[in-house]
Each structure stands twice: as structure tokens, then as C-alpha cells.
């Protein structure tokens, strides 16, 4: 597998601040992998996303050290406009992610494709498909400025995935959504993964990360402190140090272990708990 996103010793400092927001970060993400970035507020997750998308250093100035390589090419060798097609970025604040020139959701979603110069007939087909996928067909004639937070978040996601980028960087896409809406978004992300997209997701909902993501990057105060497959990272005792939430079931399992109930492995998904308990019993009977 080839590395789609490759960071080597990346440090970054915003123009007017004294401290580095990113400190010596190195990792690489293979094509087609779903990687979640977790960490507490202010740990540099969003800045990391900006770096992958190329807004650092193309848009935000400041000092960037190290190398960021997207699809075998250094980020500094891209023009900002070229990256638009390659890396889709859905960012945190859904209220600002509106182009501001379109009167309805259909055209809003189509806006990115217009900018990419896709023929009109194809735009219509692709927008229809994405509206259906993200379940916002009923909003098609609404003004994007008059939507609720959750609706805007879906529109923002739709506007990016319609452009069909190879890499999707998604920063907290479910902050305004109810549990069902959240689940649906994760289903969409899974679908994108099945289509071979490389996905980088910032999220705080650990249960869903445990269920859907392949790999985990743990950020703490600007440093990348842990990385690896989801299960390994949660199972690592070091994880507890960073005061980040566990998936609920893992939390329960850890408490069970503390009170002396043996588990054969540390479950990270709800349905695994019974399994973890059962197997030890079997083992005990033997």
C-alpha cells in the first residue's frame, strides 16, 4: 500500500503566537484507510487538518517545518486550487460553510462542481445522488441560510463529498447532530471508505470511532503521542494518561477488571463485552 498522506517531523507555529501548535509530528496514512484523530480541546487537531488540506502554509502563514507529502507530492509544490480536487475538507463550524451566493441547497451542493468545471448534465446527476446519500433531498429548495445546525452540517458534508476527492478530511461533522443523525453520518463515511477514499476524521464520539475507524492518532498538547490500530491504542495503558474518554464499553470493562473480574480481551465495541466475559468463563471451566 502506498502512503496517501505522509508527514515527517512537522512543526507549525501560527504567525502571532509564541508556542508551536504542532510539535514534531510524523505519521503516514495509507490509501483507503479511515483514520480518526482524537485529543482534548486545544490539542492541535484542527490545525493538523488544516495542514493536511494545505491551508497551512498556503493560507495561514507562520512557520511550518518538516515535510507534508500528499499523494507523493510535497504540499508546497501544490497550488491551493489544485488541492481542492484532491483533498475535501469539511470543517467544524457548519454556520460558516455556506458559499453565500446560492439561493437553494441544490445549487449550494453543486457549487463546488461548477468551480471544477464539470459539465452541467453530470453536475445534476451527481448532486441528486449525493442529496439522496446524505438524506437531504427534502431540503433541496430551501435557502442554505435558513437551515438548522444539523441540516447545515449535512449540507456541508454533501457539498464536499459531491466533489469526489480522494482524501476526505472531516472535522467534527456531527457536533450539531442527534444520535441517529450521527450514526447516519458515520454510515456515509463508511460508504466513502468502501469507495476507496482515504479518510481523516476528528471526532469526540469514541463509541463510533471504535466501531468504524481503522487507525487512531492521539494528539496531546500539540504532540502526536500515540498512533496505531484503534484496538491497540485503546488497550494501551498509556492512553489513560491523556484524560481522553474511552468508548463506554471499554470504560465498563476496565472497571470490571479493576474489581477483579477477568476478561479475555479489552472490548471496544458494545457487542464484544459478552464475548470477552464468556470466553474467560470457558477458560475458567477448562
Amino acid at each position: 500500500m502506498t502512503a496517501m498522506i505522509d508527514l515527517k517531523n512537522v512543526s507549525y507555529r501560527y504567525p502571532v503566537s509564541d508556542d508551536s501548535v504542532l510539535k514534531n509530528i510524523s505519521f503516514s496514512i495509507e490509501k483507503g484507510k479511515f483514520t480518526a484523530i482524537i485529543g482534548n480541546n486545544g490539542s492541535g487537531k484542527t490545525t493538523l487538518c488544516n495542514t493536511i488540506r494545505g491551508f497551512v502554509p498556503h493560507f495561514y502563514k507562520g512557520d511550518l517545518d518538516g515535510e507534508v507529502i500528499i499523494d507523493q507530492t510535497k504540499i508546497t509544490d501544490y497550488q491551493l486550487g489544485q488541492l481542492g480536487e484532491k483533498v475535501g475538507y469539511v470543517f467544524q463550524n457548519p454556520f460558516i460553510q455556506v458559499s453565500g451566493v446560492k439561493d437553494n441547497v441544490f445549487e449550494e451542493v453543486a457549487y463546488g462542481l461548477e468551480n471544477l468545471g464539470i459539465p452541467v448534465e453530470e453536475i445534476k446527476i451527481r448532486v441528486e445522488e449525493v442529496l439522496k446519500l446524505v438524506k437531504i433531498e427534502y431540503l433541496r429548495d430551501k435557502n442554505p441560510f435558513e437551515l438548522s445546525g444539523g441540516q447545515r452540517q449535512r449540507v456541508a458534508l454533501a457539498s464536499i463529498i459531491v466533489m469526489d476527492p480522494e482524501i476526505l478530511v472531516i472535522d467534527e461533522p456531527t457536533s450539531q447532530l442527534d444520535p441517529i443523525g450521527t450514526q447516519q453520518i458515520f454510515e456515509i463515511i463508511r460508504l466513502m471508505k468502501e469507495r476507496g477514499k482515504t479518510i481523516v476524521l476528528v471526532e469526540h464520539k469514541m463509541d463510533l470511532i471504535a466501531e468504524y475507524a481503522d487507525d487512531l492518532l492521539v494528539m496531546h498538547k500539540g504532540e502526536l503521542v500515540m498512533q496505531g490500530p484503534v484496538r491497540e491504542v485503546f488497550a494501551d495503558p498509556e492512553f489513560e494518561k491523556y484524560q481522553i474518554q474511552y468508548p463506554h464499553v471499554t470504560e465498563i470493562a476496565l472497571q470490571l477488571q479493576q474489581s477483579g473480574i477477568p476478561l479475555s480481551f479489552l472490548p471496544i465495541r458494545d457487542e464484544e463485552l459478552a464475548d470477552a466475559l464468556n470466553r474467560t468463563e470457558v477458560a475458567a471451566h477448562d
Partner: protein
Amino acid sequence: MKQNILLQLHPMTKFYFTLFIFAVVLISPGYIFSFAIFPILILIAMLAGVAKEFLNIVIKALVTVLIFIFIMQMFFYPGENVLWEWGIFEIKQEGIKYGLLLTSRILAIGSAFILFFRMTEVRDFVKSLEDIGLPPMGAYVVLSTLQIIPEMRRQANTIMEAQKTRGVETEGSIFVRAKAFIPTLTPLILSSIAGTEERAITLESRAFSAPVKKTSLHQLSKSNMDRALPIVFALVVIGLIVWRFFL
């Protein structure tokens, strides 16, 4: 959708018509002709079904200005034939004549432009400008301004409410309301400035600066009428010029 032949004309055709009125008024002598244009515009507005709004704006925006200009000209335009005198104020015949000429022209040209914007959606107009070479950046600026104004009004209301919960008095006499204006305005302006950065990123994430030619869902079509009318306008203007200056 209402099928109105006038409204369905290409924005450029409507714009040419406005320029046509502009040229006709400037070329034609005297005020009677220019004043005669106004009823024609009202007729067009009626046919297009926008007469009410059209007259409303003309009265609100133009009439007071016109009266003011007319009075100024009446009193202060240099001339010999004094009709009426009071202290330093003199009404002169030349002043009245010039005042009528000036107001007739402003009325005709001003209302032609008002009619144009009543009959044309701005986004159609901007699209037609884009078609003839306005850079997308410029088109964006015009269009986003239109959408952002109501958005800012909404935001101003939110800020106002927020300040109310913090104890800023926002209701009462004009003085009280004026005082409440400052704590509302400052956050509004600051947040708008901060918002531009995020908006720039939004546009960038939608590939706004992608190095390709953009396409558009919004297409304008030209009918035979749209091809014929500008030629008619041009011929009439040329005819007028010849009549006025060469015959």
C-alpha cells in the same frame, strides 16, 4: 412561474434598453420629450407586472430629489428674465426651463434604471455580465453582498438579544436605543471581519480557485427578440443622432 414576455427577456436586452433610454434622453432636445418617456416606462412596468413596486420606489427615491433640484435651479440658475422676486430670491425663466430639462432627464434616466432592477433578478444580471467576461471573483463579490446583508441583519438581532440578557437596555427612547447601538455594532463588525477568513476557506474548500473554467447550472438563453431588440435600439439612437446633428 408566470410567463411574462418582458420579464423573460435576457438581462442584457433589458440593460441595453436602459442604456437606450439614457442615450435618447441625452440626445433629444427639450424637456417635453424626456417627460414623455416616464409614462412609457410606467406602461412597460404595468405590462411586466411590476408597476406598483416601480412607482413606489420612484416616488420614494426620486421625487423629493427632483423637487429639490428643480427649486435650486429655479432660484439660482443665472438668467435675465425675472418672474418673481423676494429679497435675494429671484425666480428666473431660464432657471425654470433649465430646471425642467434637468429634472426631466433625471426622472427618465433614474426611473429607467429603477425599472431595470425591478424587472431583472440581480443574479441573472451578474450571470450575464459573467458571460461577457466579468471575472468570477467580481461576480462573487456582487452576489455574496446581496445574501450577506440579510444574514448580517439576523446576526445583529442575535447580538442584540445577547446584549439584552447581559443587561444592556435596547428599548425605550431614541437616546436609549442609540446608546445600545454601540455594544451591538462592535461585535457585529468584528465578527464579520473574522467571518471573512472562514468564508475564504469555505470557498477554497469548494475549489473556488481551481485552475479550470467554471461551469454553471444557471444558464441564460437568448431568444430572437433578444437578438433583434438591441439592433432596433442602436438604429433608433443612430437615427436620432443624425436627425439632431446632421440635418
